[in-house]
């Protein structure tokens, strides 16, 4: 319990630090939300200053930060100048779509990568392993976004998958299972892109961790004592290989929010990605900050889950505490 | 009366709530060889590590030539461990390994250090022509010799040998002892041998201290302890190791 409390405190400090850093960077960047307006000749500089003052953007750093913190406490997470509304609800609306995409992709990636990695570790030296490594390497080296564009082009040509969007226009009129199918159909393309990016990394880590366990003296001993190959792999090697994989899993969890942002933009998925990009372009700082903070929270949570899992599954870690 | 080379006073240490050292006190004179004997878990290795500065005592003091050194590593005290393979960086060359303490102490020029390194290798029974070979190319016994050469290159005031003799063949053993003897005569190096083999060690050490459960339960001249020890643990150790000594 004390451990969790210490972690919570530590995380709080981290979040505060990240928010301050973000504020600093935003202040350092030239211009603000209203700078765009100065491009339009009809709007006088006086109007711009007045707008700025109205929004409180001309106050000193500490004052602006302070009122942002107060806004967070209220649940508003700052005020979006572009939308003219609190940033919190806007972001909250979009999180669902992003998480739907990333959770599906992450789950799928792990479900495919773990067996693939285990198999390839067990088949080292055979030709099938060589072929699989080439395949994984090509997945890894093919740029994610390029893949997205290629798939989009194919989809446009063949009409096999929809381009963009979470649901078809007439989704509301479909039955529940119809809606589910529709969503899956829309998910297919972006999920494929994300999985193609995550899969090789996970599979290679699994392979290397399992291979190291298979080469270890304790597996040699177990084998010498007569333990059959299949059991050696799953009951003896895999548990010992979990440590680095749990850490990787924590990282996977941690990037649930941030992994798909660019892909969403390219593919037209209505999640946080497009919102985030627009906010950056417009310098709508409240939204940018809200998304960044949310990503940080996920990262912290992912790390914490990894540490807890390690504690549970690796007895060597427990010795320290 | 001269200050003893090493003085340990009321050393106490706990590990994970267990008392590993309970009020250890002893002296070691310049040029003397003493042995700390006990079974595994008696605390003897802990004493060695504390004296060498790798662990700190919870209370008590360790004095080298009168000055406190507890908790600090100093090149004047060299520790040689049981597993020399683990103690030597396999990628370092023999020359680098033996010269390392001199490098750390910033003594002499690079050339002088190289010469000294070759000299020590030779005295330890290794071929100086092999000085460019990496540690992993030497056999276990040779690596032990390298470790000893390194320890003695630093001209330490105190040499601690922690179970360093198990697994060595008689050739290496006698050469090692000869080297240590030389160091004793030339530099007054004191030697503390940590071992569980009472029978063998009592042939080399002048004084033997028997450790049990973190305390010194008996001490005295080697011959007396070996043959006529009074504490039950001493008798046990003696009988076991004597029975394992070669028959006939």
């Amino acid at each position: 319990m004390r451990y969790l409390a210490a972690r919570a405190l530590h995380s709080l400090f981290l979040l505060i630090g990240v928010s301050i850093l973000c504020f600093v960077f935003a202040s350092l960047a030239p211009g603000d939300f209203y700078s765009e307006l100065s491009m339009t000749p009809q709007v006088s500089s006086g109007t711009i200053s007045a707008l700025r003052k109205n929004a409180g953007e001309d106050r000193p750093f500490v004052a602006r930060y302070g009122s942002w913190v107060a806004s967070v406490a209220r649940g508003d997470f700052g005020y979006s100048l572009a939308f003219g509304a609190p940033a919190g609800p806007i972001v909250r609306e979009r999180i669902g779509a992003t998480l739907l995409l990333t959770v599906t992709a992450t789950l799928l990636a792990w479900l495919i990568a773990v067996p693939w990695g285990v198999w390839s570790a067990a088949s080292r030296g055979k030709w099938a392993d060589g072929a699989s490594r080439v395949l994984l390497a090509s997945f890894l080296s093919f740029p994610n976004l390029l893949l997205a564009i290629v798939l989009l082009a194919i989809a446009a040509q063949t009409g096999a998958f929809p381009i963009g969007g979470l649901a078809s226009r007439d989704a509301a009129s479909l039955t529940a299972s119809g809606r589910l199918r529709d969503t899956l159909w829309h998910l297919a393309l972006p999920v494929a892109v994300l999985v193609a990016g995550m899969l090789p990394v996970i599979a290679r880590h699994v392979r290397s961790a399992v291979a190291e366990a298979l080469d270890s003296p304790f597996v040699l001993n177990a084998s010498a004592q007569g333990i059959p190959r299949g059991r050696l792999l799953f009951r003896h090697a895999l548990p010992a290989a979990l440590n680095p994989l749990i850490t990787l899993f924590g990282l996977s969890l941690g990037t649930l929010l941030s992994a798909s942002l660019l892909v969403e933009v390219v593919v037209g998925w209505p999640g946080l990605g497009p919102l985030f990009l627009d906010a950056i372009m417009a310098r709508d700082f409240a939204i940018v900050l809200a998304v960044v903070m949310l990503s940080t929270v996920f990262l912290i949570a992912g790390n914490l889950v990894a540490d807890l899992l390690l504690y549970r599954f690796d007895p060597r870690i427990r010795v320290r505490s | 009366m001269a200050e003893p080379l090493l003085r340990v006073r009321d050393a106490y240490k706990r590990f994970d709530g267990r008392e590993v050292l309970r009020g250890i006190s002893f002296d070691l004179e310049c040029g003397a060889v003493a042995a700390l004997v006990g079974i595994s878990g008696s605390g003897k290795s802990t004493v060695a590590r504390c004296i060498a500065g790798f662990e700190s005592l919870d209370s008590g003091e360790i004095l080298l030539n009168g000055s406190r050194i507890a908790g600090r590593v100093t090149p004047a005290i060299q520790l040689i461990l049981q597993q020399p393979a683990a103690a030597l960086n396999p990628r370092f060359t023999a020359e680098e390994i033996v010269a390392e303490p001199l490098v750390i102490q910033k003594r002499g020029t690079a050339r002088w250090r190289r010469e000294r390194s070759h000299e020590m290798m030779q005295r330890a029974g290794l071929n100086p022509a092999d000085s460019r070979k990496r540690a992993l190319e030497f056999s276990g016994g040779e690596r032990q010799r390298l470790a000893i050469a390194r320890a003695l290159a630093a001209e330490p005031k105190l040499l601690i040998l922690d179970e360093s003799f198990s697994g060595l063949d008689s050739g290496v053993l006698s050469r090692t002892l000869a080297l240590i003897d030389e160091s004793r005569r030339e530099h007054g190096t004191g030697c503390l041998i940590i071992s569980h083999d009472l029978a063998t060690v009592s042939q080399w050490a002048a004084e033997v201290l028997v450790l049990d459960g973190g305390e010194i339960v008996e001490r005295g001249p080697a011959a007396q302890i070996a043959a006529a020890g009074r504490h039950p643990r001493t008798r046990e150790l003696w009988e076991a190791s004597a029975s394992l000594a070669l028959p006939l």
Partner: protein
Amino acid sequence: MRREFDFFTDSHGRGSAPLRVKMRSRAYNVGMPSGEPLLSVQNLCVDVDVDGRFRPVLHDVCCTVDEGQIAGLFGDSGCGKTTLALAIAGLLSPQYRVRGSVRFQGGGRRLAFIFQDPLLALNPVLRVGDQVAEVIRAHSAGDSVPDLLRLAGLPPTPRLLRAYPHQLSGGERQRVLLAQAIAARPALVIADEPFTALDPIRVVELADLFLSLKRELGLSMLVISHSAGVLARMADRVFAMQAGQIVESGSAREVLRHG
């Protein structure tokens, strides 16, 4: 069903493909192991591949172990004792090339190996009790984990059964390896330097334990040690090795006389 397993590779020195034979060996030949030694090693030569060249490690090694006998393999560090033991057990990695013959006639019973370093040989994330159970299961043996631990000299307390290897002392870990090795009543147990890290009191205890296992279970052993004293105490027969060759063999007394 009687099994004889024979890693007969190539006795004409032509060299064979690198040999890494798992303990679940190829069993064939039904034979009657009467009067013949339990283990017979003939003209065993082992080379190791170092940077493309083959360096000889063992040369023309011959040794035997009879039923109900404890044989000792004596020699200094680096003389090849461990390599010989691994070669007999079929556990050498592929960079070793083995020629010669190793004939083990266990009458259906297995050949067990006890590695030198128990901390490395035990799985760090599995409980010790489970690791012993795994071996029992692999051979469908009728032993129980507590029985095996008791035979190995460890009281089968819940604390021990549920412990992980890093929570045990060095001596306890070694006994766990021993418990694994004696599961399913092996015909022969090869122990690689089991006495090295032990103090004399424990050494005597372990040596006496081996002797009692020989008496009670009819266990035969090949024990490797550089300590003449302990071999003198428990071995019926000793083979002395030097630089990859057997230089002497005979009773413990004879061989160890000149240390």
